[in-house]
């Protein structure tokens, strides 16, 4: 898979795909998209990189092992869902900022919940793929 075209294309595609995945994540509340799809697209971006430059290099690019995304994502989701308890509301009640932020639009707990989902999906997918390819080389 040391195809020069693939490598060149990947170099441009990765930022685009990652950007697209964040875009999908953020628009999920109003348009088709959301944490699941966003996470999957982001992991596809890394997989693509892995195919073009070998998985070890991808891991190096990421600076840390993708499995660390899983606990981070889980805690973001859980914290965002129990946050309403501190405002004397039932768990998972949506809390929203009063004014919409620029670019992001309305920000509320469910956005953070979705971000958690996004992170977990990336972590899970990449963890599985990297583990498999890693053991394949042995």
């Amino acid at each position, binding site marked *: 898979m040391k195809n020069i075209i693939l490598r060149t294309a990947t170099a441009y595609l990765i930022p685009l795909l990652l950007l697209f995945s964040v875009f999908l994540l953020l628009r999920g509340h*109003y*348009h*088709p998209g959301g944490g*699941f799809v966003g996470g999957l697209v982001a992991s596809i971006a890394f997989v693509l990189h892995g195919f073009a430059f070998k998985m070890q290099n991808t891991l190096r690019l990421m600076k840390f092992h993708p499995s660390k995304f899983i606990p981070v994502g889980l805690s973001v989701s859980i914290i965002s869902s129990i946050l309403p308890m501190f405002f004397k509301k039932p768990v998972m009640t949506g809390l929203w900022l009063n004014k919409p932020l620029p670019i992001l639009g309305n920000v509320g707990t469910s956005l953070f919940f979705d971000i958690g989902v996004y992170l977990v*999906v990336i972590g*899970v*997918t990449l963890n*599985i793929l990297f*583990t*498999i390819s890693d053991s394949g080389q042995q």
Partner: protein
Amino acid sequence: MELLLVIMIAILYASGIFMLLRRSMVRLLMGIILIGNGANLLIFLLGGITPGKPPVIAETKSVFTEAYADPVPQALILTAIVISFGIQSFAIVLLRQVYRLLESDDLDDLNTPLEEDI
């Protein structure tokens, strides 16, 4: 169109079961994937199909003004798709480990000899 979908679902299930009955582990896994797809379609179909209207409220409005596809089956299927990915990847890896151990794809090689039966 419903009829066509029903036929597709039936064939997905039938081929899935057929694959499940094979001795090869890879086929078994494919059978599971096929049945999963069939189940998703079945849920989708039974929720009622409406061509071309996603359950998304238009930009300028705050309520639905026209017919929309049923969102509940969609949410269910979305969950199912992602979960089945988890299962599939686990199964694939399991299969690979078994293959590395036994160097065989044959399910029957997994059996313990009959003498050792309890």
